């Protein structure tokens, strides 16, 4: 079956699609982790929130494109509020407390979603333009999934340009590399963190919006992606854009093929991969920090 070209093409596209989603989801987590060594377990919750915001926005507006814009902004605002109210004060706390505060947020998020939108699953429609299927190398493939791949790629390129070409990008790069130095240059590093944090939350929200038509929207969709996103971050190297891209690609492809080819081990192998990377390359495949 591995040599069957039809299977290979469709499966590879599936892998890329999952990679694109994982990338959107994990890049925010990765940069925040890299910048302030902060693990946000509630990142999956923001993903879920993105999907639910999309649900409400889709009821309010008719345009999917508007939803695609509004819902992530909504999530970014929520993220920003969380930062200002709660997380900002946690930066100096030890990692355990950071992890546990965001752990508490998972429960709060889950129940809030159930109170507002109810416990039953919801769906939103794919926009007419992207509904249906396209032909890729002779294979029928859902157009919307191609759109997800393209979106992931576009966001990667935009972030890459942003990091390389803008002043904010340069500060972020420097901040991941050596935080005290940036602070010593008299840059308001707190503001930079805030902006980056909001952007990361917005991207998680964007992943939620994009995922909503494919996955259906239900309480608990946060848990199903959180651990995968953490694995991507660790694998690629915290704080690295290229690392997040590479990690997403590896996990997306490995998970897609692994599930089908060795279903007995599918999930165990991915956790084991994360453990191995942590042991032998704790800084990830694309390490950013230059030693001290």
């Amino acid at each position, binding site marked *: 079956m591995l040599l069957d070209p039809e299977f290979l093409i469709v499966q590879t596209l599936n892998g890329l699609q999952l990679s694109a989603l994982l990338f959107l989801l994990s890049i925010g987590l990765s940069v925040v982790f890299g910048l302030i060594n902060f693990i946000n377990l509630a990142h999956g919750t923001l993903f879920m929130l993105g999907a639910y915001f999309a649900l409400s926005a889709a009821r309010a507006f008719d345009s999917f494109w508007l939803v695609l814009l509004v819902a992530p902004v909504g999530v970014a605002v929520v993220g920003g509020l969380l930062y200002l109210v709660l997380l900002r004060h946690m930066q100096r706390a030890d990692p355990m407390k950071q992890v546990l505060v965001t*752990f508490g947020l998972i*429960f709060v998020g889950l129940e809030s979603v159930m109170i507002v939108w109810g416990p039953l699953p919801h769906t939103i429609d794919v926009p007419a333009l992207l509904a249906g299927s396209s032909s890729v190398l002779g294979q029928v493939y859902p157009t919307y999934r191609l759109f997800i791949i393209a979106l992931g790629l576009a966001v990667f390129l935009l972030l890459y340009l942003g990091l390389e070409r803008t002043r904010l990008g340069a500060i972020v790069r420097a901040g991941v590399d050596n935080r005290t130095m940036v602070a010593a240059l008299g840059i308001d590093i707190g503001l930079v963190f805030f902006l980056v944090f909001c952007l990361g939350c917005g991207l998680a929200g964007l992943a939620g919006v994009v995922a909503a038509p494919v996955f259906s929207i239900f309480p608990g969709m946060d848990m199903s992606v959180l651990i995968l996103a953490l694995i991507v971050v660790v694998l690629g190297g915290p704080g690295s854009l290229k690392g997040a891209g590479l990690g997403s690609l590896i996990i997306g492809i490995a998970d897609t093929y692994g599930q089908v080819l060795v279903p007995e081990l599918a999930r*165990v192998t991915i956790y084991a991969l994360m453990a191995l990377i*942590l042991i032998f390359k704790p800084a990830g495949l694309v390490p950013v920090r230059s030693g001290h």
Partner: protein
Amino acid sequence: MRERDPIQLPVAGLLAVIAVAAWFGAGYFGQELLAEIAILAIFAMSLDLLVGVAGMVSLGHAGFLALGAYATAGATVFWGWPPAAALAFSVAVAGACALGVGLFAVRLGGVFFIMITLAIGQMFYAYFFKARAFGGDNGMSGTPRFDLSPLGLETGDPAVFSALMLVIAGAVYVALLLLVRSPFGMMLTAIHQNENRLASLGCPVRRYKLAAFGLGGAIAGLAGALMAQHTGFVSPDLAFWTLSGEALIIVILGGSGSLVGAAGGAAVFVMLRDHLSDGSFWEGLRLSGDIATHWQLVMGLFFIAVVLLARDGLYGRLSWLVDRVRSAWRGRGGGA
């Protein structure tokens, strides 16, 4: 030394008195709760040894709990072992696995240690979820309790079983307290405070951490074996990482590093969960009983509050209070 932690034994004594009083006063259900608290306390204390004493924050500790529970379930149901032998087997299996895992995990620190333990705990979860022999996701029932009929005791009776659990929890506490106050325990405390300096004084830090990790895993396995006996049932949920998270909350709530605090935290946690999810509790507060449906929201907020406000936990607050009262007393004595 004695000055450093003056309220440890008084608080432990107080808890013991409360436990005994509760045992006498409790009905059937109260004793079930008491047994649950005792087992959770053992689990929380084993985590406290890692987190509070040695400073190793594990988010995969539930994996060893599950391992112990499954080992007991397997040994009793498949091989027909007596529960006591199965218990020893559980402790050995969980301890050995913890040592194996620790070999790699103790090389990492801080956030990375949290992440690797999370990954490994989830590995156990994924494994048990698929383990057809153990009923997969449906879990497996049929684990028997200790057979104390030669002593004329029926462990099926919650009164007997909860008393037994309290005794075991007490024994684990005493053992851990002795350990913490031994030179080895002192080393673990010092590792928590300043690992590098301890190494430069000649301490093979990783080996000590490994020993602590293995020991913590073994005791978690003990808790798991008791839990399997208590519920008669094992399921993959025991290994899920949120249980490790809840145990961490318990440790912080009680006061990390204080052992007896972890036990007290377990009691508070179980009672709180029991009340928050009970409609009549909310009605008692003159609120709508429907809030009970969303009790996890309240629990989540409580978690956040604990982490933000608890600082050194219930035990720490108590300690501080006693200090204040004492110095006020001394101040008055000095003036007179």
